[in-house]
């Protein structure tokens, strides 16, 4: 356990808490993206570069795009009613 490990863990705790505290879903997605990146850094620091790469791919590409498009569709349905 070095200072780098501690910092990486602290950033994950911070961004994770921030993700929960943000209430607006669209903003929450952006914060969740930072949380995902923080997790990727954590995996890398703890010696798992392969998992870190998967984490970057999922947290910065797949999840935000799909969630944003779903949000757009849901906002539309609410407008119709």
């Amino acid at each position, binding site marked *: 356990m070095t200072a780098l490990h501690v910092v990486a863990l602290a950033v994950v705790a911070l961004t994770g808490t921030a993700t929960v505290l943000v209430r607006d879903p669209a903003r929450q997605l952006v914060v969740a993206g930072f949380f995902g990146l923080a997790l990727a850094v954590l995996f890398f620091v703890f010696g798992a570069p*392969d998992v870190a790469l998967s984490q970057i*791919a999922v947290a910065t590409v797949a999840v935000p795009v*799909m969630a944003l498009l779903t949000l757009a569709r849901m906002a539309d349905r609410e407008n119709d009613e």
Partner: protein
Amino acid sequence: MRRALGLAGLVALAALAVWAVTGLPSFGHPRGPYATDSVPAMVQERHVSNTVVGITFDLRGIDTLGEELILFSAALGSTLLLRAQRREGRVEEAAQRADEQRTRMPPSLRAAGAYLVGPALMLAVYVIAHGNLTPGGGFQGGVIGAAALLLVYAAGQMVALEHVRPVALVELAEAVGAAAFVLVAIGGMVFATVAMANFLGFGTTGSLLSGGTIPVLNAAVGVEVTGAVTLIITEFLDQALLREARSA
């Protein structure tokens, strides 16, 4: 009352978490022999330097075959569900209207998107091709490839792609990738003794094609994941475009 109950629950959870963490083996000293033995085993017996890929595509290849088919059926399922909700004509109309709107997008943004497509595709191919050597592989490279295709859309070049019908191509890529994986698994039964057996020559450790069937499976997964993720996001995009068409 609710707050007090919640706080009590959180404190109890924190105590359990601390208790669990103190019982973990210290960092860098795993208890079982598996973690320390798998690295030399992969280099000596399979000639791959990326142990993770060696395990997922060889030692536990059957497991990966299952995951591969899960992704395949997930893409298939979401496509079926979302396509049942719309008619073909309305999507074409919506896409056309979205294309018209896109000319209003700042040229700098479109240029940045267009410039990034090439490097992103290159990175995807690199990550897939070097899966048996360095961290990465079919899944990660596949998602990067899907992101590159998505950039084509974001850069507003969909008009150019309209003629080749990318959806048909993407569907084909997904099916071909999944089929290739299954065929290699069956190849183990035909050319060796059991399904998923590594029946190709292992090559020299550190070279691009080392590891026998591992790079082949890597490429198959790369093609399949690119197809599946692009297909899912395209279907989601179609839904968003329908919304634009109705509100316009």
